[in-house]
């Protein structure tokens, strides 16, 4: 077993020396740190305009902006990491084949499993370098206060997991597809499909599938003095207010509740959804993750197609954020399982294709 990991470690260090280390890499990290710094400063400024406990801002954390900065930086690392990981991992195997170093590695005692695992770990580590570079800002946000440990740890873990998924898909595709350029493009398409495509599919689905709502409404009307039919407006100040007859109101609603499952596969949504939410005294989430979570959870609830709104009585307020979140399904677990399946599937497929002695070769490939 230790021989196995020894081999993986050799491949890992080889990959890091070959692909990652280099001036361009440090420049990229520098630019990233600069961008995160700007985001942090801007958010800090924005939040300094709100007095403590101000309107719309939770009293437990939002006021100082710690929660907002923390979630923004985490999202920023996710964005950059998923953009950089395919570039690093997307040619891990077919690039080596093109430069004639794959076969000379495979002819040694390294097994295909060690090779793939080493390359995957290298790509993952490279993406995690962005998290490491963002660490000072995350610590700064934590010092600002208002974020609890669960939020910090869970969001970081999910971020690390998602970067691993992208790295694995990149390495897998580089083993599945022959042409380096093509595999990089496909890796980016997968990332885009998950990050943006799911949102578009969700939006389109909801708009295309709409339902008829037939509601009943009773509102206050001015009791007309002349016995004619009542009217809502203009209000006749002399007339007494009375309850009008029930009226039927027809409209359509988009059925997002049929499509919420699509959002489960979105890494940003998934991350927000997985983080345990803190609520302020109004049962409102304190950070960006919580707000997004509330949004994606509330679309799970099917709209009432026959609502009865009697405004003459005290009508019940809708459920608050806390109630919504607690009454709906945590989709993140499904999303993570899905991503894991995708990553393992592509790695396995790549394993089948790069295994030696090779049987059937894809057309146009030479081993060496």
């Amino acid at each position, binding site marked *: 077993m230790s*021989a196995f990991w*020894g*081999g993986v470690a*050799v*491949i890992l260090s*080889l990959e890091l*020396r*070959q692909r990652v*280390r*280099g001036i361009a890499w440090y420049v990229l990290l520098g630019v990233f740190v600069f961008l995160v710094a700007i985001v942090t400063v801007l958010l800090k400024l924005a939040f300094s305009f709100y007095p403590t406990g101000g309107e719309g801002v939770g009293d437990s954390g939002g006021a100082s902006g710690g929660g907002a900065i923390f979630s923004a930086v985490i999202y920023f690392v996710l964005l950059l990491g998923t953009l950089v990981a395919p570039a690093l991992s997307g040619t891990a195997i077919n690039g080596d084949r*093109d*430069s*004639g*170093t794959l*076969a*000379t*590695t*495979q*002819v*040694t*005692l*390294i*097994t295909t499993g060690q090779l793939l695992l080493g390359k995957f770990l290298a790509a993952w580590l490279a993406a995690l370098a962005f998290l490491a570079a963002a660490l000072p800002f995350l610590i700064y946000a934590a010092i600002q206060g208002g974020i609890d440990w669960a939020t910090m740890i869970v969001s970081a873990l999910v971020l690390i997991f998602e970067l691993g998924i992208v790295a694995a898909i990149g390495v897998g595709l580089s083993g599945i597809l022959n042409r380096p350029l093509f595999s990089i493009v496909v890796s980016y398409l997968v990332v885009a499909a998950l990050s943006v495509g799911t949102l578009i599919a969700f939006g389109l689905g909801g708009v295309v599938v709409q339902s008829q709502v037939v509601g009943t409404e009773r509102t206050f009307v001015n009791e007309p003095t002349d016995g004619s039919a009542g009217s809502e407006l203009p209000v006749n100040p002399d007339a007494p207010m009375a309850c009008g007859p029930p009226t039927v109101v027809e409209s359509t609603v988009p059925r997002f509740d049929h499509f919420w499952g699509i959002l489960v596969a979105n890494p940003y949504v998934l991350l927000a959804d997985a983080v345990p939410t803190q609520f302020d005294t109004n049962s409102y989430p304190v950070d960006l993750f919580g707000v997004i979570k509330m949004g994606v959870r509330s679309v799970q609830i099917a709209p009432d197609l026959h609502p009865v709104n009697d405004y003459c009585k005290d009508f019940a307020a809708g459920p608050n954020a806390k109630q919504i979140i607690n009454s709906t399904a945590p989709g993140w677990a499904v999303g993570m399982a899905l991503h894991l399946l995708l990553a393992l599937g592509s790695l396995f497929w790549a394993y089948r294709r790069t295994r*030696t*002695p*090779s*049987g059937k*070769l894809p*057309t146009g490939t*030479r*081993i*060496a």
Partner: protein
Amino acid sequence: MSDTQSFSGGIVVSGVRRAFGTVYAVRDVSFTAEPGTVTALIGPNGSGKTTLMLMLASLLRPDAGRIRIAGHDPLTATSAVRQAVGWMPDVLGSWASLSVRSTLETTGRLYRMDRMTAAARAAELIALVGLTELADQPTRVLSRGQKQRLSLARALVHDPEVLLLDEPASGLDPVARIELRRLVRRVAAEGKTVLVSSHVLAELDEMADAAVYIEHGVTASTDRVAGAKRSARAWRIRSSDLLGLEHALLSIGVAQAEITRDRAELLVAVGSETAAAELLRRIVASGLPISVFAPAVGDLEHTFLDLSRSAAAVSVTRAPITTMPTTSMPITSTPTDSISIDGDGR
């Protein structure tokens, strides 16, 4: 040749076949290379040499046939074969941003050497292939010939029992070729098995103990090789008095058609070694100044050319790689040299 004969080492190949889709790269290859010898693998471009080497190196699965490398089957005992085999590919690939030294160290580590052993071995090999001055340069700055030497060193990292060299001399300067030859002979003298492929035959002539001829993926049978070896070949005769030499030859009884003039020399077709000795004795006896009397082409080349000529006569469907008009004799350059560069231009 027979698979009943069992070796504990060396290379034993019988009836190996491999196709890529509809293209048969290797159709029927059988041969044996014994430990302590250097075996030349000779064939024109596209004859399946590289494909065969890939199968021997456990990278490619044969469609049929049997391979034993140091007694192991590449399909079932893959890691034992890999431990035993050193393979130098015909494509030049190297980790561009690693130095020569760390390339060799990393290769050693890939063969499960510990750090110290790998470093020591790398230093040893760098000196052996003469890359000392470039040891700490990234491999991307190496010239073709230097990369070739690095590739050779990489194949030797784990001191393999069986060495597979695919066109090792291409890109090497004459001095490096001589060093390569010396190195290969030394490895064989240590009891290792060496298989060297090339289409530049002159250099193999001096290196190889045995030869395997392969054409269109088929190894030539022993009888055909023996027959080809016996066939008439050209001898090169140099004399300051060329005209006198020609007269002497004609008077000895050599037909005019068998004499070709090549710059300051005459090429004469001679049937056998004994006939050549007799010819030399008689020209010298005639008192002419003779400075060179030698076969115009090396042994391997002669056999190879004769084989491809007879193969061309047998198979009409495939265009022959080299067609030699039977009347005229090969000129100084080796015809195989002038064929297109290797088909796999990557």
